[in-house]
């Protein structure tokens, strides 16, 4: 199983990010071999639709679970269309804490969007 965490920087010691679609990076942890990689979030500077684009990026990276601080309505639609699962990492501070929280079944699953959406960067 592959778990992606919204992160400000690289690796397990990185701080978690406070956005999903515009998260700086994603740390992807593979539970089968306990290895991780960090990927740049190519969606973070999109003028609009960053959430959906980030979901697509994570799907391409074979992610099954996403740990997020928040989730907008369009990202939620995309999560459902890609059949991924999202959990709120709550007050986790580092990526490692978020992953441990998930492994210990302490995180809450997100089934509906947690905010009403952002307006994008308006570079239109």
């Amino acid at each position, binding site marked *: 199983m592959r778990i992606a965490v919204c992160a400000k920087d690289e690796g397990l010691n990185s701080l978690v990010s406070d956005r999903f679609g515009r998260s700086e990076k994603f740390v992807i942890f593979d539970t089968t071999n306990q290895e991780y990689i960090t990927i740049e979030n190519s969606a973070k500077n*999109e003028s*609009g639709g960053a959430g*959906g684009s980030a979901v697509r990026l994570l799907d391409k990276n074979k992610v099954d679970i996403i740990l997020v601080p928040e989730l907008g309505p369009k990202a939620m639609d*995309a999560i459902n*269309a890609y059949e991924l699962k999202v959990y709120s990492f709550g007050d986790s501070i580092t990526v490692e804490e978020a992953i441990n929280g998930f492994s210990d079944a302490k995180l809450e699953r997100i089934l509906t969007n947690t905010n009403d959406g952002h307006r994008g960067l*308006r570079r*239109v």
Partner: protein
Amino acid sequence: MNIAVLSGKGGTGKTTIAVNLAVNSKNAVLIDTDVEEPNSHIFLKPHIERTYEIKKKYPVIDTVKCTLCGECGDFCNYNAILPAKNKVLVLKELCHDCGGCELVCSFDAISFDKRDIGKIYSGKSQNDIPIIYGDLNVGEVSAVKIIERLREIVANEELVIIDSPPGTSCSTVSAVEEVDYAIIVSEPTPFGVSDMKMVVEMLRHMKISFGVVVNKSGLGDNEIYEYCKDEGIVILEEIIFDTEIAKSYAKGDILSYKIEGYSEKMSSIMNKVLESENNE
């Protein structure tokens, strides 16, 4: 002839100048392309004769033909189409209606449906000034479709005054595309000049001739005069800051009917614009 009135910074007097130019010019049609916040009609108070519903297309996926190959999602620059596991998700409010997804689809699985994004109103003021203005629905990302339609509607008019959106975004570019002349209405404040510089850069890039009206002069500083001098930009007119003008504007008056000398200033601007065009 098409003349755009633009500014960069908001609130410098675009609408005031555009409305008053229209009032003082024979056979002029005013179009308000600031469709996110149109306000020319507040001054002209037109009787609306015609309303156009403006629609925008968005893709609809034929799930039988679609193979979920992902080509459409790779092509779309606006994340409006997401080829997912068992279906293609269309985020229609993000779609810019470019039609590209249909072109790249090898399976003929994409057709289009339409949705309302705003309206265009056309009418005449009490003094018979024709005005056409657009109004974009709240939450829509792009005004370009409505602005293009506005320009189409007046394509055969003799003289069109275009009240443009502020800034230098896609909307502004669309409003000034193919105009014969642009009037930059600026104010002598640091923000006014800073935003005006971006407009100058845009107009030069688009190869559109332009001149400047310094509105509310006497406020701020001298940078605007120094900048225009250094850059060889013609100052068409100067309108001194006056609380009587501000009061009259705030009541929704047309200044040419209320403020002494205002009409003459508008005619003088118009003459200089026509002169510069004739010399081209």
